[in-house]
Each structure stands twice: as structure tokens, then as C-alpha cells.
């Protein structure tokens, strides 16, 4: 058995993971990153839009500052976020973007003079100042008061990922790809590293470390329809949750995007609707204008997804071999607009659908997009329950997104949190020594070997891995999607209980030798069903609607009872998650109020509760300095 030793073991080499590793390496510690795929293929590279930071350099970003960014983030979260964390984030974001520029990111820059932009299909003019020439510029994104999204053409995630990975190479950080962590090594108090499966050979390895950070991204793949890469399957969440002492924060908080293409659920940008595209049903008729006469297609992500689902339930969906969908129509925007402003949409339509969006309709449906849910940490990124264990990025519930994250805020989170949490890990590591109990290591390896042996030899049953996985994915699609209600969630929980039983009885069809995928899928199946169950059970209990969590039977946001965060534990041997609750935020810099979009009524929180926690803010609610 190969054993590796390092100061900091980072599981996951996306932007968050590599940023954490850089911080440790810069401070003289040995850092090692593990990744299922070569680091640059991590899902971070798929983000095109950009990342938010209040630099305020461009004309439409004038007057922007970190206070306004903080306010947008808290409102965006539907007051579901930790406000101390949102503050840390907004304040550090501009520094972090400049650091990325120093490391090599080719950010787009301010070009002085007159230029045009589109809003709601209309053309407007803007003037960039000469004195700002060459500073980092920004574009517009939903839910923000100012143009704040820094970008590099249409490949922000890719460009930043390249730079970060280059930085790791420069610092001599070991980044091992085709390595999948399958369990944590711990003694119930301290984390000591992980058991890892090599995806080249299929062999197990041990990686021991003084500190471990889980940065494995989101788990969209437990849903059938998702914009996420195939490796976003919850591996990191599962190994933490499986310890029985680490909770998943706000599992019910999952974001859906209205326009994934059918069949592959690849994302086509919100820009299509922003620029005047419309949604059509099976009769090729518009419907959003019926449900939302004011905003129509331009209502927020969660609202549009809800009405699309509703409309399909009314029998107005288009039937296809891949299930029902609706149409996105951008034909009327014309050739020039499509081949310049929507270049990437044009390419996606061409490559994946064989459709020309100038003359044909694009098949779309709402699809899972982002997991606000995650491994619960405190504001230092330290995971609840285990010493020496940290988490950052989409994998974590650090909690600056609450119940809805804003576009451009998650890519920014990866590097900002990576920096802050990396720094806290450096503090932790400084002068820290640990003892590794080899008995614990050996017994954890043995446990994994036995699991693999049992699955390969059909010791527990003979069920098909992919059938059971499909059952889980479909249960979530039915019960825990855009709309939720009591009956649907109860049915989902009871279906998943059956699925859980089945997940313990799977066996391989193949022999499982070498870099076998069926074995990888089997090893995480039960953990995935547990995550699914946490979502369903937490959603059933939360009798209100907040951000992306929408209960048809409880349409109000209920601050009186639900201004809190769910913590879902899975105790050893249990068949159901144990739900606990903690205060959403220790302080209110911005007391609960109206988001200003999405409609709905609010049941206010107890006045005294809020008042006791209000702290002084440097800004008023509309972002003006006091």
C-alpha cells in the first residue's frame, strides 16, 4: 500500500482547492492536491460569466463598493446567509481579483470612450472615462445593483483556473489527478487524511496529513437533470457526512436554472432572455407573460423555473424521448446579434443540438445548477465536528449564499474563501504537530477493502448500480425539484428509504478491475442516497418558502420560525438524518427585509430577536455611506 504524507491534504483541485493549497505552500507548508480529473478540467473551468468584486472601475460600476456588494449578497440569499461571512467575502473580493491579475489572469480591461450595450433588447450608450483606461472592467449580472462581474471574454472560469494551476506548478505543489478520496481517516475527534482510490490502477492509497481540506465542488449529479460536470457527484460531502459527526448545512437549498438544453442539460446563458428571447410551449405560444405580466421571461431564475414546471404540469410541455421540455426562441434577435453577443449559445446549439438558433427553436427545461447546501463550516472554514478538517468552495456551507446565490458570486467565493480559509489553515498548522495512530489507518483501509470486495463479489445482493442510482435521481426530480409540497416530499422520503435499502445491496456486473467506473459509482451510491434523503427530509420540515426552496403549501417566507440554518447529521447506523437548527447569522448588519423581487409575503421575525443582534453598519440599506 502506497502511503503519502503532507502538511495539508486538499481533496479537490478546482479553484477553491488550489487557492487553499497556494496559501499553505506560500507560507512554507507542504500541500498536496487530489483530483478526479486533471486540475484544469475541474468544473470551475466551465464558468463563463465571471466573478463579482466591487472594483467600481467601469462606467456602469461607478460608485460601487464592498458595502453595496455585501447588501446585494445578503438580499440575494433571501436573508439566509451568515452576514459576518458575507462581509468578509465582499471586503476581500477586490483584493483577490487584483492578486489574480498579478498572477496572470488576462482580465478584460476598461477601454475609454463611447460604446453600446443591450438591456431588455434595447440599445443604450455608455462612456468609459479616460482615467480608468486599462483597469479591470466588469459586466452586468442578475441581482446586482452595479456592474460588478469581472470577466475574461467568455471563459472566465477557464482563464482563472489556468492561472491558479500555473501558480501551483510554480510553487511546486503536488497535484495528483485521477485520484478519488473514498473515506476520511479520523478517530472521532481529529481528521488525519483520507483513503484514496487511484483511477489509473484501481489500487487504494493512504494520504496522511496534519490538516485536510475538502474542496470537491457541488453535487448536482445526484439529480437526473443538471448543468454540472459528471464528476460533481458529492464524493467530498459523502466522506465527511459518513463520519457521523459532520453536518450538511441547509441541504434543502439547491438552485435551479431555467434554461438547460435537452437532452444534455448544458447551460445556455441567462443572456438569451436578457437580450429579449422568449419561452414557448408545445403550441409555440408564449406563457411567461400570462404568469408574470410585468417581468415575463425576465423574472428571477427561481421564479421562471417555477412557472416553466407549472406549465409543463398543465400538459403544455413538448414531448421528447428524453422527457418533456419547452422552447427557447431567439430567432427574432437576428443573425448579427446571435453571432456576436450570443456566440457561445450559437456554438452550443450547433455542437450539441445541430440546431441553428437563427431559424430553429432551442429545447430547454429547468435544471439543477448549484448547491448552496454543503459541508458546514464556521467562518474560518473549519468543519463542524472534526479538528483539522476544513472545507471551501461550492462543497462548503461557509454560508455566504444562504438560500440563493447570485450569479458571479460563487466563482468569486472559490478564490476569496480559498484565501481566507487557506490563511486560517496556515495559522492552524503553525507549530502544530500530530500523532498518527497507525491502527486507525489500517482499520480504515481494511474497511474500504472489504466494501470493495463485497460489492465486487455480490456479497450483499445483486442489484444493478445504475438502476438504483436512476431511482434516486428520479425521486429527487419528482419530489425535491423546483416546487415542493408535503405530499411530494413525503413520497420522496419514503421512496428514498427503499432506495437506501437497495443501495446497500448492489453488485457489479463487470469484474471491477483497474480504473473501473462501475465500482466508483457503487462506492458512493449509499452516500448519495443519504444526501438525497437529507434534502428531502430537510425540505419537508422547512414549512416556508425562502430563495430556491419553494413550498407550494407554505408560500410565505417565515422569519418568525425559520430564520435558521438546517444541520443534517447522519448518525452511525441510522436510517434517517437527524435535523438540528442553528441561528442563520450571529449578527444583522442588514436586518431582514424584502428582496425586492420574486414577490411573496414575509412573516416577520420577533422584533426583539432582530434588535438584539443588529450591529452598526457603515451603510444604509440602499448602500449609501452613513
Amino acid at each position: 500500500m502506497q502511503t503519502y504524507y503532507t502538511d495539508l491534504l486538499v481533496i479537490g483541485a478546482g479553484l477553491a482547492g488550489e487557492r487553499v493549497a497556494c496559501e499553505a505552500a506560500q507560507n512554507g507548508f507542504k500541500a498536496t492536491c487530489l483530483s478526479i480529473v486533471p486540475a484544469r478540467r475541474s468544473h470551475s473551468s466551465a464558468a463563463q460569466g465571471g466573478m463579482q468584486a466591487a472594483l467600481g472601475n467601469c462606467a456602469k460600476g461607478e460608485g460601487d463598493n464592498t458595502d453595496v456588494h455585501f447588501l446585494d449578497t445578503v438580499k440575494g440569499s433571501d436573508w439566509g446567509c451568515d452576514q459576518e461571512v458575507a462581509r468578509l467575502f465582499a471586503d476581500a473580493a477586490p483584493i483577490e481579483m487584483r492578486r489574480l491579475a498579478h498572477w496572470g489572469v488576462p482580465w478584460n480591461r476598461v477601454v475609454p470612450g463611447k460604446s453600446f450595450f443591450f438591456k431588455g433588447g434595447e440599445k443604450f450608450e455608455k462612456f468609459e472615462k479616460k482615467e480608468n483606461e486599462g483597469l479591470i472592467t466588469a459586466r452586468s449580472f442578475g441581482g446586482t445593483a452595479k456592474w460588478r462581474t469581472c470577466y475574461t471574454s467568455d471563459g472566465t472560469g477557464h482563464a482563472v483556473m489556468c492561472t491558479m494551476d500555473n501558480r501551483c506548478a510554480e510553487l511546486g505543489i503536488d497535484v495528483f489527478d485521477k485520484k478519488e478520496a473514498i473515506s476520511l481517516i479520523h478517530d472521532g475527534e481529529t481528521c488525519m487524511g483520507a483513503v484514496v482510490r487511484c483511477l489509473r490502477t484501481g489500487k487504494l492509497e493512504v494520504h496522511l496529513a496534519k490538516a485536510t481540506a475538502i474542496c470537491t465542488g457541488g453535487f448536482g449529479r445526484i439529480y437526473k437533470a443538471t448543468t454540472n460536470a459528471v464528476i460533481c457527484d458529492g464524493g467530498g460531502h459523502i466522506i465527511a457526512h459518513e463520519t457521523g459527526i459532520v453536518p450538511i448545512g441547509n441541504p434543502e437549498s439547491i438552485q435551479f436554472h431555467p434554461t438547460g438544453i435537452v437532452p444534455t442539460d448544458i447551460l445556455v446563458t441567462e443572456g438569451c432572455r436578457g437580450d429579449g428571447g422568449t419561452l414557448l410551449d408545445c403550441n409555440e405560444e408564449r406563457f411567461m407573460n400570462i404568469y408574470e405580466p410585468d417581468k415575463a421571461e425576465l423574472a428571477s431564475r427561481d421564479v421562471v423555473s417555477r412557472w416553466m414546471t407549472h406549465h409543463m404540469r398543465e400538459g403544455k410541455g413538448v414531448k421528447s424521448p428524453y422527457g418533456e421540455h419547452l422552447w427557447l426562441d431567439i430567432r427574432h434577435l437576428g443573425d448579427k446579434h446571435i453571432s456576436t453577443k450570443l456566440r457561445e449559445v450559437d456554438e452550443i446549439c450547433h455542437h450539441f443540438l445541430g440546431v441553428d438558433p437563427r431559424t430553429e427553436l432551442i429545447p430547454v427545461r429547468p435544471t439543477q445548477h448549484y448547491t448552496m447546501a454543503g459541508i458546514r463550516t464556521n467562518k474560518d472554514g473549519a468543519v463542524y465536528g472534526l479538528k483539522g478538517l476544513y472545507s471551501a468552495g461550492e462543497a462548503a456551507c461557509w454560508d455566504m449564499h444562504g438560500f440563493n446565490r447570485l450569479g458571479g458570486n460563487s466563482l468569486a467565493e472559490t478564490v476569496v474563501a480559498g484565501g481566507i480559509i487557506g490563511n486560517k489553515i496556515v495559522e492552524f498548522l503553525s507549530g502544530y504537530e500530530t500523532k498518527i495512530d497507525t491502527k486507525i489507518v489500517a482499520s480504515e483501509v481494511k474497511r474500504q477493502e472489504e466494501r470493495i470486495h463485497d460489492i465486487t463479489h455480490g456479497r450483499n445482493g445483486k442489484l444493478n448500480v445504475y438502476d438504483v442510482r436512476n431511482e434516486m435521481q428520479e425521486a429527487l426530480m419528482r419530489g425535491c425539484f423546483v416546487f415542493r409540497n408535503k405530499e411530494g416530499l413525503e413520497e420522496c422520503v419514503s421512496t428514498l428509504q427503499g432506495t437506501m435499502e437497495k443501495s446497500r445491496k448492489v453488485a457489479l456486473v463487470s469484474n471491477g478491475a483497474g480504473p473501473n467506473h462501475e465500482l466508483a459509482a457503487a462506492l458512493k451510491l449509499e452516500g448519495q442516497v443519504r444526501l438525497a434523503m437529507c434534502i428531502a427530509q430537510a425540505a419537508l420540515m422547512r414549512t416556508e418558502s425562502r430563495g430556491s426552496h419553494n413550498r407550494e403549501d407554505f408560500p410565505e417566507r417565515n422569519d418568525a420560525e425559520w430564520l435558521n440554518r438546517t444541520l443534517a447529521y447522519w448518525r452511525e447506523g441510522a436510517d434517517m438524518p437527524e435535523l438540528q437548527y442553528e441561528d442563520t447569522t450571529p449578527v444583522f448588519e442588514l436586518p431582514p427585509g424584502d428582496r425586492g423581487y420574486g414577490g411573496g409575503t414575509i412573516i416577520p421575525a420577533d422584533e426583539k430577536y432582530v434588535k438584539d443582534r443588529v450591529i452598526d453598519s457603515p451603510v444604509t440599506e440602499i448602500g449609501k455611506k452613513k
Partner: protein
Amino acid sequence: MGRQLKFEIFRYNPEVKGDVPHMQTYTLDETPNMTLFIALNRLREEQDPSLVFDFCCRAGICGACAMVINGRPGLACQTKTKDQPGKIILHPLPVFKLIGDLSVDTGVWFREMYSKTESWVHTSKVFDPKAKEERMDNEVAEQVYELERCIECGCCVSACGTARLRDDFMGAAALNRIARFVVDPRDERDDEQYFEIIGNDQGIFGCMGLLACEDVCPKGLPLQNQLGFLRRKMGITAMKQIFRKK
């Protein structure tokens, strides 16, 4: 619609004793908008779970799924079956180390490339968190980005005659990487330092200029221009060095 597709897939699992490379045939009913991503996953989930291949983003942006599709290197996820004949022959990329079936080790190859090319901005400046960012011309930024669009799929390397003949040839992706830093004003390396890295047969002078690389690049990177640009630049640097020695 309604075609029955025949797949001939290269099979070899080095971890199984006695396994020998061979081709295996599968059939599958074609559905509308089917891509090789959909087809291969269906084959694995419904017919043969031992099949090894790589996908990640399945959206043509990560470079994981490059393979030889009916004789030509390309991205499997953005290949539609309807653009292929009824018989689809799949091989792993040559040049890279084989992991199993259609999966090759691009990760290690590219990581070695980063260290050979020292793929990072070389600067003596220290980052100051309190200062505003250094200014940059937007056009230059866009130029750098255009060269950074490489997704490290490896198609260019596997299509390259030189790379097939000699293991130590850097390939178009590495030379493109150098070009990326040459145009970046933040990188303080001079031509002679670049010459150290690529001014030899493993680098720019090994390239035969047949341009198979650019033909297969799924991102349409201007590899031809970059090779020409570097060859001229390195030629001049070589001349300078010869004259200086005299």
C-alpha cells in the same frame, strides 16, 4: 432517425493479466440529438460496465473526452452521431500513455509540459494588496486570452507526426503555451530565456510544419500562426547568439 448504430471500440485493460488489445463491437439504437457522450454512457450502463472512457464537462469545454473518432482526433462529447456513418470506430489518442480502453493519461503529460515551459508569469514584482491593479491594454488582454483558450485535450499532439516519432517533442500545445507568455507584458523573460526552452529539436525546430495540429484543434486555436511567430523569433535569437559568439 431510427438507425441502428454499430460501434467498434478499442479494448484493453492493462490491469487485467493476460488481456490483449482488441476491438469489440456493440450496437445501439440512435435517438435524436444523440452525441457520443450519450451513446458511450448508454453502452456502459446498459451493456458493458467494464468500458473505460473519460468525460467531465460533457459540454466541449474541459478537454477530457478526446479520442480518435473514425480515424480523426476529436472531442467525443461534441460529436453528434448523426454526423457519423452507421459504423463508428473509436480508438484512444496515440502518443499519450494508455490507461484503459479509450482513456489516456493527458494529466501527467501536460503537467510535465508546465515544468518544461515554466508555465507561469515570471515577474520580479511583489503583489501589494493595498495598491490598485497594474493597468493593461484591453487588446493585449484579449490576445493573451485567445492563446490561453487551449483545453489541453491533446488532439494536436496525437495528430502530430513529430510527436509520434519522438517522445521528447513538446508539441503544438506547449509551443502555444510559450507564445502565450511571450505576448504577456507581465512576463519578464526575454527571448534568450525562451530560446533556452524551445530553441532546439524538442521544440520549435523539431516541428515539420505540416499543420495537422491546427486542423484537429477543437478550439480552433491559431497554432499555425504561433508556430510561425515563434520560429521567426527563435531564428532571430539563434542568429544573434551566433554573431555574439564571433
